[in-house]
């Protein structure tokens, strides 16, 4: 048996949980059983014109059920949003390295900062951390309409919500909300837009922490064959950065090692 494969999974539900945000539940025992927080899966559309798989973070995995939450932003995610219960979808087994939890022990505190669709992988992360006896604080930022907040609270995390519009919670970014509320923790984990990750990495550094951040890049294969999705990584004691693959060496990197351009 090979370690990785593409499986066919039955859709258990596919429903809108906020405007343009869908929650997809799949019966996918092989995927769910090996899913680690921060990993992603490749999801295939049934539209032949759309060649490439769509990388989607593992939001949750319980028993045989895999939960993905996605924003409808283009033709592929539009296709997913039209799928019905009972329909079969092709999906890969988990890809990439998740968050490194070997550094976290019972009694520690962890700050989870998510921006927009980047809050998705933090659900599974919060569950695993909580089960490890780690106190979780989550700052969740959105443009206007929050989602997955109740799920995060149900895990037992202390939650701060921020919106750009100020419609719900703190007006501003998740990071600012967390810092204003004094939520700093020993461990920082984050996922969201690149600019946000840059600020998270900088703020963590200022406080003597090293955030684990999940990067996003256009991918070809998602499993390390095409070298399409790279990020510049600083190597200790070396002048030239090294270009690492987001899909295979990441998507989670240390804030201190990522070189942000622009």
């Amino acid at each position: 048996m090979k370690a990785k494969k593409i499986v066919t999974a039955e859709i258990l539900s596919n429903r809108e949980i906020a405007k343009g945000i869908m929650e997809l539940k799949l019966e996918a025992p092989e995927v769910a059983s090996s899913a680690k927080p921060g990993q992603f899966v490749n999801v295939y559309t049934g539209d032949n014109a759309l060649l490439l798989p769509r990388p989607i973070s593992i939001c949750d995995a319980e028993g045989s059920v895999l939960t993905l939450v996605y924003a409808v932003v283009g033709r592929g995610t539009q296709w997913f949003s039209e799928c019905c219960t009972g329909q079969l979808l092709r999906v890969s087994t988990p890809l990439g390295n998740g968050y490194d939890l070997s550094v976290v022990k019972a009694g520690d505190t962890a700050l989870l900062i998510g921006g927009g669709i980047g809050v998705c992988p933090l659900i599974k992360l919060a569950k695993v951390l909580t089960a490890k006896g780690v106190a979780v604080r989550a700052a969740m930022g959105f443009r206007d309409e929050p989602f997955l907040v109740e799920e995060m609270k149900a895990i037992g995390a202390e939650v701060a919500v921020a919106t750009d519009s100020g419609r719900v919670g703190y007006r501003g970014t998740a990071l600012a909300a967390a810092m204003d509320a004094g939520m700093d923790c020993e461990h920082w984990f984050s996922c969201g837009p690149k600019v946000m990750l840059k600020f998270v990495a900088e703020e963590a550094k200022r406080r003597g922490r090293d955030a684990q951040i999940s990067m996003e890049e256009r991918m070809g294969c998602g499993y390390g064959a095409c070298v399409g999705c790279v990020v510049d990584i600083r190597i200790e004691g070396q002048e030239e950065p090294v270009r690492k693959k987001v899909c295979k060496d990441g998507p989670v990197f240390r804030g201190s090692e990522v070189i942000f351009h622009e």
Partner: protein
Amino acid sequence: MSSKLDLRVNIAGVEWKNPITTASGTFSPRESSAFYDLSKLGAVTTKGVANVPWSGNPTPRIAETYGGMLNAVGLQNPGVEAYIQEELPYLANYDTRVIANVAGHSVEEYCAVVERLNDTAVDMFEVNISCPNVKQGGIGFGTDSKQAGLVTKAVKAIAKKPVIIKLTPNVTDIAEIAKAVEANGADAISMINTLLGMRIDVRRGKPVLANTTGGFSGPAVKPVALRMVYQVRRAVQIPIIGLGGISTGEDAAEFLMAGADAVAVGTAALVNPTAPVDILEQLKGYMEEMDFATVSDIKNAFQG
């Protein structure tokens, strides 16, 4: 049934157990072997390797197109020393032929890689004179029959293994280039590399790829690749490894009928990691259905 099939092919004196290999840049020994047993393939063709590490182009490097994709990876590779230390020992675990795809900006650079790999387990060299994503060199050699001939001659003079020259489709007359490389001693030809393409994000008013242009590949390019293999088969005698959009066993059979002696699977393997072995199984199924026992039977059945 399948015991009756004999899929062996001989490419420039090197016997492959079947006519399927991977396309350079779409295969990684460790990553691909997480999905399938590399020993099932006739050969594996590795990512372009240069004499020193190359960092490639900025991102985004990938864009999707209708039934295809654009890439502007720019031949990022860790260099020939890392290739010898990391990739070759790993490939030694598998019973398959190893084709090293060679990248360079100059004749000297191509030759440096070949020289360094001469006394390794590499079975064949594939010289990429056709990459559209690297500013100097690469495609510059592949679009001019004189230059293509010069590179071929220089590499042939030092190579201790058979030399495959990989051709670009971005030319007016590909048969002319093929004749030039054959005349200068090429042992085989592989074709096609990617077609030069482009996409624009009309909301941002900017090219989708950071490199502006990129190489177009995938199912959408298959008719172009097939036509070119057909033309080149009529211009040269040396073996042809056909590629460009192959996604099914029947696609592979089409290339064999057009004149290829073996085929490579590229973009299909990015979409479906097990594509090379799936295509092999489909090809066997097709051969059984058609009552073909050998690869030559497929080729000979073409009446065009």
